[in-house]
């Protein structure tokens, strides 16, 4: 269904820029039809499933318009801006990298096909139009893909940082009681941060009892296990008793291997039990320092 547009075709060969503006005009004119065709292809390819039909419609419209605009100006800045904008809008919707690249490639093909239909009668002209269009279209696809991956990495890193911070909170549960849940892999750097946070937390919250819950940490190496024990001892020096909960058999084994006398550590099976023990320590009195610090 090609429309015969009465473009004053100047067939002067090699006029790439002129051809490009011609095809931009073509894409603008048939915007509605081409965009719908593209959306259909996206659905057929099962891409962007995470989006509602309304979102799809809005996104494809906006992506389409920007795409044409970038084709028109051809400037790198505009292209990068477009790609970044696209990534920022699409990543929060849970879209995967291959989907984004996929829809951009689909759009490239939908548009290429419409150009094919339009110029099919003049094979020479068609070749020239495609020569002008394809490099530009591929450049857009590449830039979008790279930008999307970058943006995604940035978002993931941000989330990891947030998780990292979240996973070593010192939680003041009630007066004089702190909980330190350890989640995820403990490396020495994190263990060091954790100790500093806990010790200053004890002073800040005037804690008398600390429950360190390591249910969330499947395994630790000997260095970190050592660090854990030192943290317990240091807390005691500041006047706080430490209860350790959620000690996996594996970690318990590591502690024994490095020579820790587990009977001197106040360990309780689970967090609930640990909190009960903490209440008991707080409610009654800590008459004597339980266990002994290192001799």
């Amino acid at each position, binding site marked *: 269904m090609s429309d015969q547009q009465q473009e004053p075709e100047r067939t002067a060969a090699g006029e790439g820029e002129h051809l490009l503006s011609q095809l931009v005009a073509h894409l603008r004119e048939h915007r509605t039809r081409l965009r719908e065709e593209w959306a259909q292809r996206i659905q057929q390819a099962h891409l962007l499933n995470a989006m509602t039909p309304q979102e799809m419609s809005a996104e494809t419209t906006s992506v389409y318009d920007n795409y044409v605009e970038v084709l028109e100006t051809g400037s790198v800045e505009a292209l990068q801006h477009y790609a970044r904008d696209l990534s920022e809008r699409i990543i929060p919707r849970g879209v995967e990298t291959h989907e984004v690249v996929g829809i951009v490639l689909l759009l490239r093909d939908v548009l290429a096909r419409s150009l094919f239909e339009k110029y099919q009668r003049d094979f020479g002209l068609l070749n020239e139009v495609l020569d002008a269009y394809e490099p530009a279209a591929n450049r857009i696809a590449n830039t979008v893909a790279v930008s999307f991956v970058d943006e995604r990495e940035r978002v993931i890193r941000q989330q990891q940082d947030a998780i990292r911070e979240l996973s070593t909170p010192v939680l003041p549960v009630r007066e004089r009681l702190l909980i330190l849940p350890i989640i995820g892999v403990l490396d020495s750097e994190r263990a060091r941060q954790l*100790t*500093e946070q806990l*010790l*200053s937390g*004890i*002073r800040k919250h*005037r*804690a*008398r009892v600390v429950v360190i819950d390591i249910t969330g940490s499947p395994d630790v190496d000997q260095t970190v296990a050592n660090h854990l024990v*030192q*943290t317990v*001892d*240091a*807390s*005691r*020096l*500041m*006047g*706080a008793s430490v209860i350790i909960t959620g000690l996996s058999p594996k970690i318990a084994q590591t502690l024994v291997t490095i020579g820790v006398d587990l009977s001197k550590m106040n360990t309780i099976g689970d967090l609930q039990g640990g909190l009960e023990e903490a209440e008991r320590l707080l409610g009654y*009195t*800590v*008459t*004597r*320092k339980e266990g*002994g*610090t*290192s*001799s």
Partner: protein
Amino acid sequence: MNGGPALVSIMRQGSNLIASVHTALDDSELVRFERDLVDQIGEFRSRGVIIDVAALDVIDSFAALTLRRIAEMARLRGAVTVLVGIQPEVAFTMVRLGIGTGDVPTALDLEEGLEMLARTAPHPASGADGRR
């Protein structure tokens, strides 16, 4: 040191003695502090002793040893000693160095220390003392 600003102060409060270290002490000053404090524990027949070390930016092996010795001497004279105010960095460094306070109980600060003493030592008004 005589004549200069006091390096430590020892205050009497009821049956307790509160000793505060105001600045870094060298070894001989620590020994002098130990002697003065132990003398006063004997003199005042104190029941409880609090040593506030919040001002110490370093507690090395000698300082830790001295503090433990004070507590032991106090115990022999019938007093319980509580060590208060060990700073977070100092606490961690002591542990890394491999020194502790032994059996000497610790508390966060003076207030906590006094409370601990009140729980540990029998109240003087209540007369009978269960332990030595």
